[in-house]
């Protein structure tokens, strides 16, 4: 994969700015689910680990890569699950409550 240093830095810089602008607008009400969601998204690192395992370049790569895939996958699954559970609990008082 050809990714030059400068290309990478451009992407990093832009994504960092977007991150700041988007996340500044997240209501403090949802800071906990925000953290568990970003945690799940961050586990996209699994793609790097998948390639390491799949290419089977050495037994070291297979062993460490597999542990890495397990760790990241558990973050993806666990992170999305708990974020969804949390957000399901947030509701307003407006819809008429069960009597």
């Amino acid at each position, binding site marked *: 994969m050809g990714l030059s240093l400068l290309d*990478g830095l451009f992407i990093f810089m832009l994504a960092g700015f977007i991150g*700041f602008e988007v996340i500044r607008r997240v209501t403090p009400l949802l*800071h906990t689910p925000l953290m568990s*969601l*970003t945690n799940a*998204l961050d586990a996209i690192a699994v793609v*790097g680990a998948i390639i390491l395992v799949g290419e089977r370049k050495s037994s070291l790569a297979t062993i460490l890569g597999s542990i890495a895939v397990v760790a990241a996958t558990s973050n993806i*699954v666990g992170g999305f*699950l708990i974020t969804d559970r949390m957000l399901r609990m947030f509701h307003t008082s407006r819809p008429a409550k069960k009597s």
Partner: protein
Amino acid sequence: MTNISFETVIEVTYLVASALFILSLKWMSSPTTARRGIFAGEIGMLLAICGTLLHRGIVDYRTIAIALALGTIIGIPLGRVAMTAVPQRTALSHAFGALCVTLVGTTEYYINTPGAKSFAMAVLCVEVILGGLTITGSLMAAGKLQEILPQRPLTYKGQNLVNFALLGVAVVIAIILVMNPAHKELFPIMVAIAVAFGVLLVIPIGGADMPTVISLLNSYAGLSAAAMGFVVGNKLLIIAGALDGSSGMILSIVMSKAMNRSFTNVLFGAFGQVQPAAAAGQETRTTRSATADEAAAILAAANKVVIVPGYGMAVAQAQHKVRELYDALTKRGVDVKFAIHPVAGRMPGHMNVLLAEADIPYDRLADMEDINGDFPQTDVALVIGANDVTNPAAREDKGSPIYGMPILDVDKARTVMVIKRSMSPGFAGIDNPLYYMDRTLMLFGDAKGFVGNIVRELTGGGH
């Protein structure tokens, strides 16, 4: 289909996934769109993983499948923990994320050493050092939050010097490796130092500082993932890492502002070790206490009540009783709101999640800036398990260690009620003048039990 078009397909899935990740975070701005945000994130993740599986270098699908399945099996219980355990679960997942990044970085080093360019090597060192310290730092934080480890800060003389020296050694090794990547014997030492540094970094940090520390570790986990993106040449990973890194950074800033402290102060200040001196000479001050039926009568007569929850409410698991109190008062026509300090609890937004779990509508939860102007018109401010965030000394007493910290102005309410186990000072060991005011009633007891008694008086009293 040629190989080239496979590459293009992969890149396109990454492109779409990047857009979906950004949308996902954008939709978190409001509770009404937030669940759509999760959906976007999930689709993006699925696309990216499926795209990656098309990678033409992959020959071993079986091991990948086993690892993915195992990760799923571990992930499901981690997604089902109790809401009170969310802070330690979050810390644990920072550790998992960093573990993945560190392992990949380590493997990349051993596979590609001979040809490593100096920039690639430098980023790899950043990846592994940040990742390594995040693994153990997060595990320590999780241990403290789960109360496997002592919550008190552990300090010793020259602690900061030792920590900085260690980090310095790791950086020196990194520089040597950048200049000559072939020093294979040095690499494990660098990783070991980073891992040890993570432990030492969190040892002196107390429970009350956890919101900042968790946010900071979140940021490190993100930045190390972005560094991994550079190392493996993956744009999507750079983007996701940058988003996570900036999210953690923003939360850290919000948290330290809410405590009027800098990062360095949180990390190296070892709060919570403070003055036993203040206790002298204040023995004569008196407090007024009240029973549950007296408290219930005052609450029932009020028009406007603001409840201030803190970590004590979470520890006592009192949130469901608090919800019953909310229901009982609302039924009597009392306007009840909740005032949430940014650092109440053990992670950003902790109180909001607990109250939402107890089925309290989120439009009743107010941030500090929004509610502070309301306290003078509030009949009763009921403080449950919160201490320092209500301490007027932060506003008035220049000598106080928490002077300058933004607080909830509960002392301006017409009546203040504080549910507390005893008069012992809070976590930071700072005396709270709020408790000695004429308008303050101390309600001594366990938060869950006491609120339960008030509710019984309000509902069962027959009036």
